[in-house]
């Protein structure tokens, strides 16, 4: 059931690699599920945000592709369109449609309890990806596969410190308010700057709502009121590219007069590094398909799997961008 959309993303490239895992500790027995072959399993996928940004497009695509590869009996995908209550209903709908396994990309770390307990009642294995749930692994769900968003912020800070020589004035373009990813990426960045970037002053933190146009207008304002800004940290690529447009409009050279660092690793952003108009990108690898399905396979086969699997996110800078840009999504 591949409706083939937005497939500039070939999910083969730059596979996710496991960075750290708490070791294979959770198996069917402890979780109390029964063995089934993926081939006769109905697999349900609950996506949190619309597939209208590169990250989500790539994420959904890679899950679909792997489902097809694994030749599952039936693959059902839902999209919560950034509405928590809808994600709950989506998961419940998937269950009542007879899903045997669930892959969930949670919108939020809290609030999915009713959905999880519904799965629990039927002992349906739940693999969560991307954002970590505030619940108990191998009980409320099987395991979590995803990035460490705090770490992403920290690494962005490292890149920025390196790139600016540890001094200058920085403005942060925050993700949408109330979004856990925003909180983590801010925390990681700010703490690291405190720790290692004594010469760097954070002059502004304003939300760009993960959106390009918003990132642009906010940056335009900030560049006017703080002309001495030397670097921008954007909590996703889209806002970073918005900031780039603002810098150009202000008659300055992005990447030189004002440096730009962001998180995601989209083609659009990475190719800007290649062009020398952008400084660094920390990857947030959305291609959860392969990892999710190998995990599922072994779990359903009865083998133990990791409960807390943190993937290894790559990073792009002037040195590697040209060679790695094809791996970007």
């Amino acid at each position, binding site marked *: 059931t591949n409706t083939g959309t937005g497939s*500039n993303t070939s999910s083969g490239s730059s596979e996710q690699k496991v960075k750290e895992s708490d070791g294979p500790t959770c198996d069917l027995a402890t979780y109390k599920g029964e063995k089934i072959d993926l081939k006769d399993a109905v697999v349900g996928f609950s996506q949190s945000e619309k597939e*209208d940004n590169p990250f989500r497009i790539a994420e959904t695509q890679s899950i679909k592709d792997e489902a097809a590869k694994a030749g599952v009996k039936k693959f059902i995908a839902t999209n919560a369109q950034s509405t928590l209550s809808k994600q709950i209903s989506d998961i419940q709908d998937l269950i009542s449609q007879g899903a045997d396994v669930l892959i969930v990309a949670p919108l939020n770390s809290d609030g999915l309890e009713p959905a999880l307990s519904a799965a629990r009642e039927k002992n349906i294995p739940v693999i969560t990806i991307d954002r970590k749930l505030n619940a108990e692994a191998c009980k409320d769900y099987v395991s979590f596969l995803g990035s460490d968003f705090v770490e992403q912020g920290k690494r962005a800070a490292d890149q920025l410190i390196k790139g600016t020589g540890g001094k200058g004035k920085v403005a942060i373009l925050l993700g949408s308010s109330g979004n856990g990813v925003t909180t983590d990426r801010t925390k990681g960045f700010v703490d690291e700057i405190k720790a290692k970037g004594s010469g760097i002053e954070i002059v502004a933190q*304003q939300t760009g709502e993960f*959106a*390009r146009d918003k990132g642009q207008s906010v940056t335009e*304002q900030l560049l*006017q009121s703080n002309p001495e800004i030397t670097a921008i940290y954007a909590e996703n690529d889209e806002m970073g590219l918005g900031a780039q*447009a603002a810098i150009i409009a202000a008659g300055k050279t992005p990447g030189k007069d004002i440096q730009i660092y962001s998180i995601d690793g989209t083609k*659009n952003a990475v190719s800007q590094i290649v062009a020398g108009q952008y400084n660094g990108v920390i990857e947030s690898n959305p291609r959860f398909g392969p990892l999710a399905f190998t995990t599922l396979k072994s779990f359903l086969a009865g083998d133990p799997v990791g409960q807390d699997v943190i993937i290894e996110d790559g990073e792009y800078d002037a040195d590697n961008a040209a060679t790695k840009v094809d791996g970007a999504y």
Partner: protein
Amino acid sequence: MSSVTIRLPRQGAGLALLQKYGVYLAIVLILVANLIVTPNFFTIDNLRTQLVQVVPVLIVALGMALVIGTEGIDLSVGAAMAMAAAVLPLYIGYGFVPALIIALVAALVIGLTNGVLVAFVGVQPIVATLSLMVAGRGLALLVAGEQLRPVIDPTVLALGRGTVFGVPWAVLIAAALVAIIAVLVNRTTFGKQLVAVGGNRRAAELAGLPVKRILLVIYLVCAVLAAVAGIIGTARLAASVPSTIGNLIELSAITAVVVGGTPLSGGQVKIAGTVAGALLLQIITATLVKHNVPDAYSQIIQAAIIIVAVYIQRGKVFTK
């Protein structure tokens, strides 16, 4: 409306003036405040930035003012912007003008649907346009193949960044549109007829006005203006972002119109006020961002200012 207009307690002449020029006063106050507390506010660059940033909301608000004048409302303007933004890069290969035209036509489809639903089927505007707000953006994304495309066409880039004697193209276009709409409203037969429709639709019909056609045209105009805003936004961003462009702009536009003194009950259109309303919202956001006010508080402050601005200029309580 009945011959009995329930009025609010009489106010003094001073208050009456305040009522009439509330928005302008608010603008002046906030500007003065910035003069004192905000570094580099009164620089040419910054003022230009504010003008450039207000353009999309302003242009959308012009169309919204017309729709509101007919006692309607259009929630689908954001979708129309997205549609234009999505289509433009697809046909830019044929050159700017053809691409522009196709983009405007694509947005017209949304306006046409709105117009037919409201004028001919008689669906209540808020729901008619709500359904297009939802479906329209989805359509735009589909057309764009869910892609965010960089736009590198020189003409488009010029439109976004070029200036004439230091005045950005975007601002010039907006100014021209303001002039055109102002003339349409105040000097043409159509302008009079549209407020008549908003004032008392039944009476307008009995007076032989082509009410349905008027409504249809209004929704078309509103969609085209939104499309223009979408194209300018795309040009400024040098990228087509149908997913987020114009998100929630309908609310800002409606607010601008109402803050500008056009009643939602229809029968009046105030273009100058609408321009002022849009500018007011712009400098409020600017001030809040420049002072790095956290999202939570800036939302509260914006709300407060809107209430005050509308409150001081409330006149009669219009009722149907």
